[in-house]
């Protein structure tokens, strides 16, 4: 019973991991890739860790797997957000098929959409007043 449940959980986790990495290869720009890969791989690895707990080989292994799952759930979105923010500030353009850019609209309201990823110039009005460039 435990073995069957663990196999189902680990199988679902492996499927999520694989699809996340296919998304990392197939999608067109950094922002789409960070979205697909982070969400799928975080959930998939947490499923694998839960499957390790459910299999019940030893108590120490189960407790460490739960700890590791909680840590990955907390830190992986933070890392993905930091990478996406760093990519935007370092000037990586959006894919030409993207339809909305709320961060750029808020940060540089006076610019045309193609130039919003460039760094802020001196004397330029900044939206929302939070970013000093």
């Amino acid at each position, binding site marked *: 019973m435990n073995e069957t449940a663990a196999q189902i959980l*680990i199988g679902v986790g492996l499927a999520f991991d694989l699809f*996340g990495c296919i998304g990392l290869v197939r999608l067109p720009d*950094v922002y789409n890739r960070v979205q697909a890969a982070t969400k799928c791989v975080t959930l998939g690895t947490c499923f694998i860790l839960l499957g390790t707990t459910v299999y019940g080989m030893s108590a120490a292994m189960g407790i460490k797997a739960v700890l590791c799952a909680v840590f990955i759930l907390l830190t*992986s979105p933070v890392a993905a957000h*930091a990478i996406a923010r760093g990519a935007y500030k370092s000037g990586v353009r959006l894919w030409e098929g993207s339809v909305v850019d709320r961060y750029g609209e808020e940060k540089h309201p006076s610019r045309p959409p193609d130039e919003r990823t460039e760094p802020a110039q001196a004397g330029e009005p900044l939206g929302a007043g939070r970013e000093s460039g």
Partner: protein
Amino acid sequence: MTTFLLIGAVVLLFAAFLCLYRIGQGPTAPDRTVAIDILGTLIVGFCCIMALWTGQDFYMNIAIAWALLSFIGTIALAKYLEGRYYDE
């Protein structure tokens, strides 16, 4: 269960090779950083598979340490991409 874990290890290795493709091919530096982050998370899952396969506890210690160090490294790379000082 051993056959299942073997299939799981092969699937994870294939996913890791997809990440390596993105690390080598990615047109910009953030692409490579994302792929390094995802590769670290995949290695945590691979450590679980190895722990179940061999029945040894210490693979879970490796998984926890790898998750911590991967997070710290990714944050440092993201700050570097942002083009600011580390102690801001």
